[in-house]
Structure formats: structure tokens, C-alpha cells
């Protein structure tokens, strides 16, 4: 369209396509009506138990009571600023960042290592895969209860063996400098086998002919890993990273069972902080505000990761 012809053309023709669009939309809607009806039961339950609850969190985050007997009143964003100003929250965020990086990186590295070592299927590798996958099958709560005994100071399994080597035994869960790392060990132990599955699947997708060609061209194992396998696994990496990060925020069963966020808040993670606000402080407003902040961060992170993933997939 040139500048000499102003808006005349679009205005003249707008009525017909719009009608056309509406018709097309109605037609499509009619065609997919049975599908929507089939989805209806799930939609109803999603609305009741997922979106309804989320909506409630939005509302609750805006209300607060000044004193115990006072009625709740609208406070706008006060709850959010109160959460951001709370040193316990910023402490939990810091802990959670350390925890996320400290669990995602080692467990993904281990998972890749396991997958590369066990990518060929035979009796031994199948047995080893099963063994490495076993921790995934144990519920987190049960695993935490097990590790509670492994980490017992002085008499636990770990101290029983390490005790022969060290002069002073670490109090694994009772020392604020060590406790978070002790918790991280469980997460790595538990998740590495799970992520291994994704890498195993990713490795199946590495084209056989390219590998063969590289082999014929004289590329050694390292060259093949560096220039073929790792680039091919990029989508898997991204996906597993997103999952690992989500896990770092949404799985706090072990914190609950083993340390309750202690000692001195050393293992307090964001989700556990929310639980504390809601249950111990009985402060629904602050808990909801913290939930919203976490949700926003998680959704931003996920959107970013998947966009990067889509770009890489779609790009040349």
C-alpha cells in the first residue's frame, strides 16, 4: 500500500472478510464441539482444583489483617513488599538458587555420563540402568527417612565409615554450613537416574549414519561426543534443565522430613517458606504473595527456556 492511498481500501473491504471470519470460526467451533464436550469434565475439574485455587491465591495475596482480631482488609501490593523485605524470604531464595544450581548441574552431568556409558543395550547395561533408576522409584519421603539414619551424627551409616578417617565427625544435618549440601546430595542421588532416561532417549535420536560417517572420517570418541552427540542432545539438555529447575523449587519433601528448614534456616527453601507462612505464622496473605512471586519466576523461566528451545529447533 502506498502513502498516496490512505485508509480507503481496508475500510471498504472490511465487512465481508469479518463476516467470513466469523462464519469460519463458527464452522470450526461446531466441528470441534464434541471435542470440547469431551474435554468438559477435565476442564471442570481443572477449573475447580487448579485454576480456582490459583485464582484464590491471587485474591488472598491482596488481603491482610492488621491484628489478630481485626477483619481482613484490602492492602494491595503490601503483602508482596512485606515478603520481599523479609530476610527469611531472601535467605530462602538464596538457598534455593544454590540448591537449584548445585543439584541441577551435578545430576545432569551424572545423568549424561550414565547414559553415555549405558547407551548400548545388553544384559549388563540393562541391569545397571535398572540399578541407577531405582532411587527414582523410592518416594522422596521414604528416601528422606532413610537418609535421616544415614546422616545420624556419630552413629549413622556415613559417620560409621567416615569416622575412621576424620578426627571430628560432621553433624550432617545439624550444622548450618553443611546441612544444605547434605540435602543436595539426596536430590542428586534421587534425580540423576531419572534424567538419565531422557538422555538415553536423546541418544537414540542421534543419527546412526552421521556417526558412521564421522567414524570413517577418523573422528575419535571425543570428537564424536563434542561435535555430534552433544549438539544433537541440545533439546534434551534444555528440557532436562527446565525439569531440574522446576524440581528444585517444587520438591521440598526432604526438607520437610529431615530439617524443617533448619538449623537456623540454613535449609529453608522457597516452597517451605511459603508453608511456614501459611501454617506456622498463619499468614495467608504473605504466603499467597510469596506463592505468586514464585509462580511468576517459574513461569518466566519456563517460557524463556521453551522459547530458546523453539528457536534452536526452528533455526538453521
Amino acid at each position, binding site marked *: 500500500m502506498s502513502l498516496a492511498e490512505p485508509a480507503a481500501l481496508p475500510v471498504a473491504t472490511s465487512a465481508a472478510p469479518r463476516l467470513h471470519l466469523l462464519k469460519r470460526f463458527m464452522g470450526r467451533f461446531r466441528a470441534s464441539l464434541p471435542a470440547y464436550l469431551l474435554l468438559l469434565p477435565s476442564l471442570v475439574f481443572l477449573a475447580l482444583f487448579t485454576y480456582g485455587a490459583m485464582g484464590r491465591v491471587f485474591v488472598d495475596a491482596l488481603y491482610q489483617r492488621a491484628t489478630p*482480631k*481485626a477483619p481482613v482488609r484490602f492492602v494491595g501490593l503490601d503483602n508482596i513488599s512485606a515478603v520481599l523485605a523479609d530476610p527469611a524470604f531472601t535467605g530462602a531464595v538464596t538457598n534455593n538458587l544454590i540448591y537449584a544450581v548445585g543439584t541441577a548441574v551435578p545430576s545432569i552431568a551424572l545423568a549424561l555420563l550414565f547414559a553415555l556409558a549405558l547407551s548400548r543395550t545388553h544384559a549388563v547395561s540393562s541391569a545397571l540402568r535398572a540399578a541407577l533408576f531405582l532411587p527414582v522409584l523410592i518416594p522422596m519421603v521414604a528416601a528422606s527417612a532413610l537418609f535421616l539414619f544415614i546422616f*545420624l551424627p556419630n*552413629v549413622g551409616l556415613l559417620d560409621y565409615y567416615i569416622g575412621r578417617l576424620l*578426627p571430628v565427625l560432621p553433624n550432617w544435618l*545439624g550444622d548450618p554450613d553443611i546441612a544444605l549440601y547434605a540435602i543436595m546430595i539426596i536430590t542428586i542421588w534421587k534425580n540423576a537416574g531419572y534424567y538419565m532416561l531422557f538422555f538415553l532417549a536423546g541418544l537414540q535420536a542421534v543419527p546412526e549414519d552421521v556417526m558412521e560417517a564421522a567414524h570413517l572420517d577418523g573422528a575419535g570418541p571425543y570428537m564424536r561426543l563434542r561435535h555430534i552427540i552433544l549438539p544433537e542432545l541440545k533439546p534434551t539438555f534444555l528440557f532436562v534443565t527446565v525439569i531440574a529447575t522446576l524440581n528444585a523449587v517444587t520438591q521440598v519433601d526432604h526438607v520437610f522430613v529431615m530439617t524443617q528448614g533448619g538449623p*537456623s534456616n540454613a535449609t529453608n527453601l522457597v516452597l517451605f517458606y511459603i508453608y511456614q507462612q501459611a501454617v506456622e505464622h498463619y499468614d495467608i496473605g504473605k504466603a499467597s504473595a510469596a506463592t505468586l512471586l514464585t509462580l511468576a519466576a517459574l513461569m518466566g523461566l519456563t517460557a524463556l527456556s521453551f522459547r530458546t528451545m523453539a528457536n534452536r529447533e526452528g533455526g538453521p
Partner: protein
Amino acid sequence: MLFSRRLMLGLAMAGALAFPALAGEGPTEVDLFFPVPVDGKLARDMGTLIKEFNETHPDVKATAVYTGSYDDTLIKTRAAIKAGKPPAAVIMSANFLLDMQIENELTNLDSLIAADGSTKEKFLGQFFPALQGNAVINRSVYGVPFHNSTPLLYINADKAKEAGLDPSKPPQTWAELTDWAKKLTKRDGDKVTQWGIAIPCAYDYCGWMMETLTMSNGGRYYNEEFGGEVYYDTPSMLGALTWWNDLIYKHKVHTPGATPGPAVSTSFISGNAAMMMLSTGSLTYVRDNAKFAYKVAFIPRNVRNAVPIGGASLIMPAGLEADKQKAAWTLIKWMTSPEKSGWWSRATGYFAPNMAAYKTPEMVDFLGKNPDAKTAVEQLDVAKPWFATYKTVPVRKNLEDEVMLVLNGKKQPKEALAAAQKAADETLKPYNAETSLKLP
């Protein structure tokens, strides 16, 4: 149209599932929420107890609902109240009652007691006086003591004899206890192979132990008459925390760091710690598992003999229908009667709050066989209420976080307690704004 017919059928089925059949006429159905706070087979024992109740009370059908730890039980009760379906009765940690009363979540039991033709004094008179403080708020009864505990000093008698100490004369003062702990600590070069004493510190236990040590040092943890004050930054608590700190870093007879309750009892059972301070609630566990002779004693004093109580009371949430209230009251009275109270005590290791329980022939017989169970009851003479404030748990945590730093050698007792006091005052502020600082 085959599609939509199937769909209709599916929807109809979903509808049928969503609306269960309405209950018909019959006995009043009541739910009892109960926690299992200690090791053992409490859940099974509770099943036995409720079955017996239902058999002897045809007009009430009680169902025992297991609700996890003390903290979980509070959460679930509050969730049920919010949902408009409160359980008829709950076994609630005794120090949560005040907080619940402040939040208007409890039924005042005074009118039910009066309807029975009894008086408050007469009703409460059944129970040990030490337990009444946590059941009465503003001179009204809100809870009925169900199972209670006090902290005890557990001693490995075999190890004591080995070290030349007489277990029949347990340490009575902090000085004697320090001396015992030194003699009971075994070293191999720099390495400790046997610790003299273990005192638990994890959220919940830590606050209770701090109250224990502070009270035996002459102090008070909180204002028993008013839920808006705690006394963290005081000489008596400073002395208590300094002594605990000294046991670790000066005398080196106690493991550094914060050790949770189960780790302490395991350490004692395995012989790694020769003495420990722990709840009477663990007595049955120790009795069943210790492969050595053990001895229980009062918590030693520095200034006076005094300990806090622990354990739980039966409560009724607010907002119950009249018939449920009546049925729950029947259940509560039955469960706290001398016979049942005694039975539960023998099954769990808690002491029976109802004084008459100790006059029943079964109990006399039991104490004859297990004299260690008597120590907890005797210590009740010097027991006082468990700390309970507005927002008990966060206020307690304000102290515990600082104590953990001290036990880990990261802070000195004096500055830790000042920080704890500041944090607790901040937590208590809204309540004070509404009560003590709301002036005409």
C-alpha cells in the same frame, strides 16, 4: 449421534460418583483427629481404644483419623474448620491451645461442664495441677489433658558403674551433671568415642529443652498469664544457654551442633551417649530397645527443680453442631477417665493426666513392675505449664534459630539471646498492639 449418547452416559456416571449417597438416620457420627508424635504403635492403640468406645456407646459412632505430627494436626484441624467441617474432637499439642483461642477456633467447655452438674474446679481437680495451666485460658476451660510428659534425665547405668559412678545416686545439680558427663566422656586422642551427655535440639524439641534448662535455672520462658511476652534476654536464660554451650565447647562432653530427638535416642541406645535429656514419651521406646541397665532421674537443677510439661489435650473446634458437641463431650470424658487414661499411659509411656488413674489396680501393678515410670509422675510436683503465646511456633522458632547458631559455635549466647528477643518481640507486636498497648 452415537458420540453424544456415550457422552451423556459418561456425564451421568460422573454425576453419580460426585454425589455419594446421603447418610441416613443413626448414631451421631464424630471424627477424632489424632497425631502420633513419638515412636511406637500409637495408631494401633488408638484403634483399639475407639473400637471399645463404639461398642459401649451405641448412640455415638466415633472414627479415629490419623493426622500426622502435632504440627500437621494443627494444620489439618484449621483446614477443616476453614472448610466448615470441623472434626468433633482433636488431640492437640497442649501449647497450641492459646493460639487457637486467640484465633477463635476453640469451643469453650465451661457450659458443657456446667450442664453435667459439675464445676470448673471439680472438673479440673481430677487432673494434676501442673497440667491445668495449658488447659485454662482466661479462667475458662478449653482443653482436657489427655497424655502428657516431662523431660527426664536418662542414664546408662552400666557405663556409669564402669566410670566409678553410682547410678542409684543420679546427679542432682548442674555441677554434678557436668562432673558426671566429664567422667562419662571417653576420648581416643582428640577423637571422642563416647559422649557424656546428649540434649536434643531440633525445631519444637529445642524450645522445650530451653524452657527446661531456663526453669531449672530459676527462670521463666514466657508470661504464663498473657500471650504477648517472652523472656529470652534474661539472666536465667543466658545462664541456661551458656551452660549448654559450655558442655560443648568448654567441657567437650556434648556433640557440637543441633541434634534432633531421634538422633539423641539412637545415640543413647547404641551406647554412643552415656546420658541424655529426653521426654518421658520416649520411655517405652528406651525400655523396649536398651540392651543395658538404664536409670531415669529428675532434670538436675542449678537454682531450683522445675520442668515444663509437654503432651496433648483433647479439644473441640469452634462451630460444631449441638449433637456433635454432645457426642464429642461424651467421647472426651470417656477417654480421660481414670481407667482409659491409665490404659493409654501404659501403652504409650506418657503419664496419665487423671490422678485417679494411679489408684487403679492395673496401674499400681504396672508401676510395681516398672518403677522408672514413677519418676515422671513424681517430677510433676515441680512441673509448670508449657510455653504458649500468640503465634507459639514462630515465637519459639525465633529462639531456636539463635540457639542452633550457638550450639554450632557461630554466635555467643549473649548476642544470640538479644537477637532472639528482638525477633520474638517483632512477631508478638500485632497481638500487643491489640491488647497490652491498646490504650484508652
